[in-house]
C-alpha cells in the first residue's frame, strides 16, 4: 500500500482538510506579506499604493546593524547550547536504561511551566536588587583583576562572551539585566533542552562499543569522542542546531523582557512596526528579510545534503558495477 503513485478520490479526501487549512492560513498569508512589502503605508496605519518606497526605507543604516546583531546572538546561543548539550546527551545515553527516561523527563519538565513565567523568574533573579547581580559584579571584578595578564585576543574573547569588561566599563555600572548577556543566558536556558533532546535521541542509537573499539586500538577518550562519537550523532547535532538557531533568530519576547534598549533584534523591530507604529508594509519587509535569513542557510544545507547523498549513491553504483563486472568473469 505504501508509496502508491495513483491518486484518486480517497487521496483527495484525506489530503484536502490539512492542505486547504495550511494553504489558507500559511501559504496565502505568506504571499500577502510579500505583496505588502511592495506597498507604501498611510498615516493612519493602513496599506497604501503600490510602490517600492518600503524597500528603499530598509537601507536605513540601523537595519544592517540589527540584522547582524540578531545573527550574531543566534550563533552565540546555538554555540553554547550545543557545547552544553553534547556532554549531557552523552551522559544520559550512557546511563542504565531505567535512568535514561527519568533524566530525559527531568530535562523536559521545566517546559511544563509557562515560558513567560520562566522568563519572568529570570527577570526577577537578574534584577539589580537580586542576588545574582551581586554575584555577577563580584565575578566581573575578579575577572578583570585576574585576566589582566592574559594575551590580548583572549581578553577580547572574554569580553565578547560577556565574562569580562576589559576595564573599559566601570564594573559597578555593568548589569546583566537589560543587556545582551541576559538575552544570551536566558535564550540558552530556554533552548538548551531542544538541543539536548535530538542529540540524545541520536546518541541512544549510537553503538557505544565503537568507542571501546577505538580505545582498544589506542585512541584517547577525547579523540574517540571527536572522531567516532561526534560523526555518529551528526544528524542529531544538525537538527539540534536548527532547533535552536531558528527560534532564536525570530525571538522577540526574551530581548523585549530582558534586553532593555541595548538588545533590540529584528523580532522586536517587526513587532514595533506592526503593533506600535502600525506601519504594516515596513513590518512585512522586515519579516521577508528574516524569512530570507532563515531560508537561505536552510536551503543551502538541504541542497548540500541532497548532493552529498546523490554523490554517495553514484559512488556506490560505480563500485557495485565494477564488482559485478569483475565478479561476473569468475
Amino acid at each position: 500500500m505504501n508509496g502508491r503513485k495513483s491518486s484518486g478520490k480517497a487521496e483527495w479526501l484525506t489530503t484536502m482538510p490539512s492542505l486547504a487549512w495550511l494553504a489558507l492560513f500559511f501559504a496565502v498569508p505568506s504571499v500577502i506579506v510579500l505583496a505588502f512589502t511592495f506597498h507604501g503605508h498611510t498615516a493612519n496605519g493602513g496599506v497604501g499604493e503600490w510602490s517600492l518606497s518600503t524597500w528603499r526605507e530598509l537601507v536605513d543604516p540601523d537595519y544592517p546593524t540589527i540584522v547582524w546583531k540578531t545573527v550574531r546572538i543566534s550563533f552565540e546561543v546555538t554555540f553554547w547550547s550545543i557545547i552544553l548539550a553534547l556532554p549531557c546527551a552523552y551522559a544520559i545515553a550512557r546511563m542504565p536504561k531505567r535512568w535514561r527516561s527519568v533524566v530525559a523527563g527531568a530535562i523536559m519538565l521545566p517546559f511544563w511551566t509557562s515560558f513567560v513565567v520562566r522568563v519572568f523568574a529570570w527577570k526577577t533573579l537578574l534584577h539589580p536588587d537580586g542576588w545574582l547581580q551581586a554575584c555577577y559584579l563580584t565575578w566581573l571584578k575578579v575577572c578583570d583583576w585576574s585576566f589582566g595578564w592574559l594575551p590580548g585576543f583572549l581578553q577580547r574573547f572574554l569580553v565578547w562572551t560577556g565574562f569580562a569588561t576589559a576595564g573599559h566599563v566601570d564594573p559597578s555600572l555593568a548589569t546583566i539585566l537589560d543587556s545582551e548577556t541576559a538575552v544570551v543566558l536566558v535564550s540558552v536556558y530556554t533552548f538548551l533542552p531542544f538541543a539536548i533532546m535530538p542529540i540524545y535521541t541520536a546518541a541512544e542509537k549510537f553503538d557505544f562499543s565503537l568507542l571501546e573499539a577505538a580505545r582498544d586500538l589506542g585512541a584517547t577518550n577525547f579523540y574517540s569522542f571527536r572522531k567516532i562519537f561526534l560523526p555518529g550523532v551528526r544528524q542529531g547535532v544538525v537538527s539540534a542546531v536548527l532547533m535552536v538557531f531558528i527560534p532564536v533568530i525570530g525571538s522577540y519576547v526574551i530581548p523585549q523582557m530582558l534586553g532593555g534598549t541595548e538588545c533590540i533584534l529584528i523580532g522586536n523591530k517587526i513587532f514595533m512596526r506592526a503593533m506600535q507604529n502600525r506601519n504594516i508594509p515596513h513590518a512585512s519587509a522586515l519579516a521577508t528579510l528574516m524569512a530570507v535569513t532563515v531560508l537561505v542557510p536552510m536551503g543551502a544545507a538541504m541542497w548540500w545534503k541532497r548532493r552529498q547523498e546523490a554523490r554517495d549513491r553514484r559512488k556506490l553504483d560505480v563500485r557495485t558495477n565494477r564488482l559485478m563486472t569483475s565478479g561476473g568473469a569468475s
Partner: protein
Amino acid sequence: MKRSYFSTAMLAAVLAFLYVPILLVVVYGFIPNGIAMSFYDASGNFAGVTGKWYSMIFTGDNRLGALMESFWLSLTIAGLATVASCVLGTTAALALHKWRSRLQSLHHALVYTPLIMPDILIGISLLMLFVACGVDCGFWTILVSHITFCVSYVVMTILARLQDFDDRIVEAAYDLGAGPWYTFFHVQLPILMPGIVAGGLLAFTLSIDDVVITSFVNGAGTNTFPTYVSSMTKHSRNLPAVFALSTLMLLFTCVLAGLSKIVARGQTQKERLR
C-alpha cells in the same frame, strides 16, 4: 559500563541550571510583598511566608479576575486547538504516508515549512491575512492561528509513528473481510493512538505556552495567560499570584505524569498476571 565523570558532572550542572528558575517560581509564589517582590516589607523587616495568593486563586478573588480569565481562555484555546490539530494532523499524516504523488510533495512542503519558520513570521503573516480580510482579532483568530502552527508538529509526531507501522497489518484486515472504514477505526486508529496522544500533548503545550503568535493576533482586550503575564511589569501588584498559579500547574502536570506512569505499570502487571 564505563562512564565519563566530566560529562556526568556537566549533566548535573545543566540540570541545576535548568531547575534554578523553576525553584524560584515555586518560592516566589509565597512572597508576601508583591510590589517589591521581596520577603521583606518596606521598612526592611522580614515579613514571613504567605499562602494568600493560593487562597485568592481558590476563592476566585476579584483582584485576580483578569489573570484567571486569561488562564481559562488559554485552557479553552489549547483544548480546542489540540482536538482540531489532531484531526487535521491524523488525516494529513495518513495521506503523506500512503501516497507519493505530486499533490503529496506540495502537501509535505506545506506541512514542513511552518516547522522551520520562526514563530514570529507565522504570527505576522496571519496578522496580515486578518488585516487584509478585515477580520477583527479576538478569540477566533487566536484559535485559528494556534491550530495552524500545531498541525505541523502533530503530523510529524504521527508520521514518525507510522514509519514503524507495518502496512501488511492493513492488508491483513482487508484480507479478512474488513472495509476501509472498519480497518481505519478498528485497526489503524488504535495502533496510531499513542502517536496521536503524543502529538496532542505536544500541541497542547505549544498552544498553552505560545506568546509570540498570540501577541500578533489577539487584538485589543483578549489576553491568553502568556500574553497577560508578559504585559505585567515587575512591579505589578499581583505578580506572586502568577507564580503561585504556575506552581499549581506544574504540580498538576507532575501528578498527571506520575499517575499515567503508575497506570501504565499497573496495566503491564495485570497483563502479566493474566
